[in-house]
């Protein structure tokens, strides 16, 4: 069986600085992987490179997604293939109504996959269902994308898109940052509802707290641009006890 | 609204006659013959014992000046200046060689004492108790056309810093002067700068060698004393690679019925990784309550961020002068260089201010920041005029500009004239401007809490200018704050 996502010996630079020094990671369908590590360990860089954010230079290694070379694809091609990045800081787009944005994005993905565009009634029905399950009021959908949204609303909007686009790989970048416990629970419930045997998730987080809500199958610890330890969910608890310091030395 | 009426009434009775630096010093002085000709230029050059190249430089400027027109684009209005009816050089009579400060005319020393400018190092060192860690300030005092004293020369010399009157620098460091003089503000730059190039008499010269952080604040104190005398000082500051210097100038003039002309030029050069912080507290005589007298302040100030990562920061508190025409600017030539302009311009009575800055982005990733606070009271006119431009090759240029105006009374005017010019897509410019009055609600709130109307206005104005005051060296921030209150006295507070 071929893996959904294979990151092999990935080396990445930003300007003159190498951030990832040969990182490898394999994620199969149906699995939830957590990537933990201190600030500056390269967690967010990994998520950005998988999604294709400009400004990163891949100097070595490869990323295969469903067996295809992901690094050769533009960000929108990756999205159409099923890569979804839930942003740590979702941007505000004034003047573009959330509803317009959702429909444009969904249809762009469908078109790229050679599928027919969703009819307006079908689209509206689907959005309303998902929005209701995430406690997203209708008026939020009429406003500009994320404009004036609270931190929790922005994250719920990310989960809404995840539910709508049905990607095969979800990368959740520091999904808990800036959320209080109630907002976190709502967002996490939304994510858990999307867990399935067809879909994999990579949960990036600094704190173990999030993993109480989204329980991973595997935990990887990153330090200084490498995965320094991998294990089961108990590894997260262990980290909570002992901190990252032990790995810092190991990586150096 | 009685409070409002009272305010308006006060504005009518406005009293700029409270100018505290308006006394005259009676001393003997030596002047060039009235009027401007090649002979005047030769006279000045000879008085200064200048080398031949310097005279040539001046004469060339003078010849060019004769072909130039006085600019009219600024929003200032004044009777035609008769350039032949002025003296271009005045110096206190002195003994041939000045061995020490003791030989300076005691009247002049008294003048500076009265102005609160200490010139005796021992006094500064021994004098009043100073809080621990407070920085000392080296002062160059310019009285009319000449520098009368420069303090802390020895200590600065040890650090390798050259701080001396520019007339001395021309003789003692001709190579440095030749290399930099006119390299930022060319002799042909504009009418007033060209005039200055022909007849400048003195001013300060600063050179900070590579890697040196100037051990103290440097300061020049300008005083116009003589009647009908133009003051044309020239300042040149060079921060070599990795150097840092903070420089402050202060200005006052006696109270006179006729207008005095001041046309200065300041040139700053910052090499790689160097930083120059230039602060001005300008308090030339603003004229009386009828708009009679006062200094015409036509000044060209420009900094050249010549090297990579260099930084030039202008801070000005402009409260004086009948007319202010002044645009301290930055040429951001070096990659990653930064220019800053922080300004408080207060006009009262019949004062006219047309001031602002130019940020010329030429290098890559250059940044600039402009914070301008204009306060107009009485019958004054207060204009912010600024240019932000990004050259085609100035990739990644960034500017943020905020200019706010506050009007006190309904007989004054506040104007904002920004030019924002982008010639490449990666430039990111943000400009915002507001004009408002002091909210009656805020005043009422303060008065209800026990402040007087004047205190309340002072509070609001000080809040309004806070962002800029913070940029001043600490020693002067307090002084500037007091000055602001004094400038607005009689308007409201």
């Amino acid at each position, binding site marked *: 069986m071929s893996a959904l996502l294979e990151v092999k010996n990935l080396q990445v630079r930003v300007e003159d600085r190498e951030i990832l020094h040969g990182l490898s990671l394999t994620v199969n369908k149906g699995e939830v992987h957590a990537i933990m590590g201190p600030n500056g360990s390269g967690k967010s860089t990994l998520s950005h490179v998988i*999604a*294709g*954010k*400009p400004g990163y230079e891949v100097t070595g290694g490869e990323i295969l997604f469903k067996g295809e070379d992901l690094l050769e694809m*533009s*960000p*929108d091609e990756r*999205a*159409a293939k099923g890569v*979804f*990045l839930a942003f740590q800081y*979702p*941007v505000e*787009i004034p*003047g*573009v109504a959330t509803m*317009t*944005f959702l429909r*444009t*994005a969904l249809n*762009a*993905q469908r078109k*790229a996959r050679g599928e027919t565009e969703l009819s307006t009634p079908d689209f509206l029905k689907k959005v309303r269902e998902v929005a209701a399950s995430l406690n997203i009021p209708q008026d939020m959908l009429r406003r*500009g994308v994320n404009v004036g949204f609270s931190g929790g609303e922005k994250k719920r909007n990310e989960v809404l*898109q995840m539910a709508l*686009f049905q990607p095969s790989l979800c990368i959740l970048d520091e999904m808990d940052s800036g959320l209080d416990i109630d907002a976190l629970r709502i967002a996490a419930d939304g994510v858990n509802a999307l867990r399935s045997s067809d879909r994999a998730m990579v949960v990036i987080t600094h704190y173990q707290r999030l993993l109480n809500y989204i329980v991973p199958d595997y935990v990887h610890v990153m330090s200084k641009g490498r995965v320094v330890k991998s294990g089961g969910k108990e590894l997260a608890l262990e980290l909570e006890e002992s901190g990252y310091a032990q790995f810092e030395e190991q990586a150096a | 609204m009685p409070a409002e009426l009272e305010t308006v009434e006060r504005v009518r009775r406005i009293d700029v006659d409270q100018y505290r630096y308006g006394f005259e010093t009676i001393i003997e002085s030596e002047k060039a013959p009235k009027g401007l000709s090649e002979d005047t230029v030769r006279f000045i050059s000879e008085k200064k014992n200048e080398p031949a190249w310097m005279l040539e430089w001046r004469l060339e400027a003078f010849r060019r000046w004769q072909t130039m027109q006085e600019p009219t*684009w600024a929003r200032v209005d004044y009777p035609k200046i008769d350039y032949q009816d002025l003296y271009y050089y005045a110096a206190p009579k002195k003994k041939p060689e000045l061995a020490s400060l003791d030989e300076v005319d005691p009247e002049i020393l008294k003048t500076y004492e009265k102005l609160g400018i200490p010139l005796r190092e021992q006094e500064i060192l021994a004098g009043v108790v100073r809080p621990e860690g407070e920085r000392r300030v080296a002062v160059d005092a310019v009285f009319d056309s000449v520098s009368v004293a420069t303090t802390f020369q020895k200590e600065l010399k040890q650090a390798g810093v050259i701080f001396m009157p520019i007339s001395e620098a021309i003789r003692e460091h001709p190579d440095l002067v030749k290399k930099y003089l006119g390299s930022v503000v060319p002799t042909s730059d504009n009418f007033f700068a060209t005039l200055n190039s022909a007849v400048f008499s003195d001013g300060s010269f600063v050179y900070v060698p590579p890697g040196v952080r100037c051990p103290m604040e440097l300061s020049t104190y300008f005083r116009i004393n003589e009647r009908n005398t133009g003051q044309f000082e020239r300042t040149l500051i060079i921060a070599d690679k990795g150097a840092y210097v903070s420089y402050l100038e202060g200005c006052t003039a006696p109270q006179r019925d006729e207008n005095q002309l001041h046309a200065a030029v300041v040139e700053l050069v910052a090499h790689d990784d160097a930083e120059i912080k230039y602060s001005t507290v300008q308090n030339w005589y603003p004229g009386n309550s009828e708009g009679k007298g006062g200094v015409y302040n036509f000044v060209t100030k420009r900094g050249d961020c010549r090297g990579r990562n260099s930084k030039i920061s202008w801070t000005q508190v402009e409260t004086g002068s009948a007319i202010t025409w002044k645009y301290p600017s930055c040429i951001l030539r070096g990659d990653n260089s930064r220019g800053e302009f922080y300004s408080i311009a207060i006009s009262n009575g019949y004062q006219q201010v047309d001031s602002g800055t130019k940020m010329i982005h030429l290098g890559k990733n250059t940044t600039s920041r402009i914070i301008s606070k204009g306060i107009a009271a009485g019958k004054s006119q207060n204009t912010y005029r600024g240019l932000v431009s990004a050259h*085609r090759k100035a990739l990644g240029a960034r500017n943020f500009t905020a200019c706010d*105006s506050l*009007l*006190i*009374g*309904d*007989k*004054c*005017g*506040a*104007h*904002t*004239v*920004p*030019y*924002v*010019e*982008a*010639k*490449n*897509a*990666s*430039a*990111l*410019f*943000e*400009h*915002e*401007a*507001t*004009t*408002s*009055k002091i909210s009656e609600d805020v005043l009422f709130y303060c008065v209800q809490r026990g402040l007087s109307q004047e205190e309340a206005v002072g509070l609001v104005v000080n809040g309004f200018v806070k962002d800029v005051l913070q940029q001043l060296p600490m020693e002067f921030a307090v002084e500037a704050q007091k000055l602001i209150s004094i400038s607005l006295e009689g308007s409201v507070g």
Partner: protein
Amino acid sequence: MNVAVVKPTPERALGELFATARDRLPGSGIVSEVREAAFAEFAKRGLPNRRVEEWKYTDLRALLREVAPLAAAPDQAALAKAATAVAALDVIDAYKLVLVDGVFAPKLSDVSALEAGVRLNTLSEVLEDRDNKVRGDLLLTNATSDVMVSLNAAMATDGFVLNVDDNVALKKPIHIVHVATQTGTAAFTRSLLRVGKGAQATLVESFAAAAGAQTYQVHDAVVVWVGDDAQVQHVRLVEDSHDASNVSTAIVTLGAKTQFNSFNLTSGSVLSRYQGFLRFGGEHANATINGVNLLKDRQHGDTTLVLDHAVPHCDSREVFRAVVDDRAHSVFQGRINVHPDAQKTDARMMTRALLLSDEAEADNKPELEIFADDVQCGHGATTGALDESLLFYLRARGLSEKEAQALLIQAFVGEAMESIADEQLRELAIATAERWLAARG
């Protein structure tokens, strides 16, 4: 052997321009005198150059070089070509009034359909009317001494004089369509609209070329008086051919408690200048003056607005957006004058430029001139490229680069279009922007 071509001096060319046109210009007596004086003013000052502060960024001496000779009156063939162009613009439900090469074309217009309460004359017929003692005033204004307005007064061949009676609410917009059919000539038009007290009217102006018309010049002026309590919308769409020039002026005077809502969209012309002079003449009036420049190739588009808050208690809002691609150059100058007694003025202006290419240029000059203290005035100006993080977010959600750009650009210009009250006009503006975006490819 080469024959030396003597280039006429600008002065001589100017003199010829008026001399050769004189016989064709309607009006005699007082009208001729006004024209002579206006032309003398123009001849004295010539085309504005960059040393004229108001024209600093649009140096007509360099960009326009000279005023083209007056266009000939359209013949049958020209009218036929114009008819095709007008049909293409006929997408809104309005009373259409067509000017072809500066001359009224009744057969292409909807004159008979006009509602009761609207009086229409052509400019030429009023100028020719010897019984009308004030006919010379149609060519005069005290709102500006701009030299291009003087040129327009000297040379105007036709236009409309429209009156909307008090308390009449027009059901449909009046749509003045300017069509050029010739190459290398200039059309000079001037229209006047007086809207009575409590009346409601919408004026739309379109500028377009008939097939084959090139390098022509449009010199237009519109003068609008809005009576007390009246509501007026003014929408302009400049879609001239890509090598044409368009220099237009709008002069607006607002009465008390009026609502004035204007929008200008410039996507055509290699060189365009739209200058608006708006004066608040009565208290409690409210004006929204918005505009969008969509420029590419080597287009130069200048929008210059001067607002005079001459009386207290008026509000103004200005929102301007420029989208600049290729080597195009956008200029926005906006000046707000608050006169000494205009207390309680609330004036805001926001101008933003989006540069899509490294060689694009945008100059913004927002100005405030304030002589009253109890006012709230502000302006903002930004210049920049499309936000990379927004683009990435959209692409990460599956939009192609062009789709993502188009969505953001539409949102960007949409902020200036929201204020167009009339839905069909708003949609027309949006559709024009969409066409422009689609043409970017």
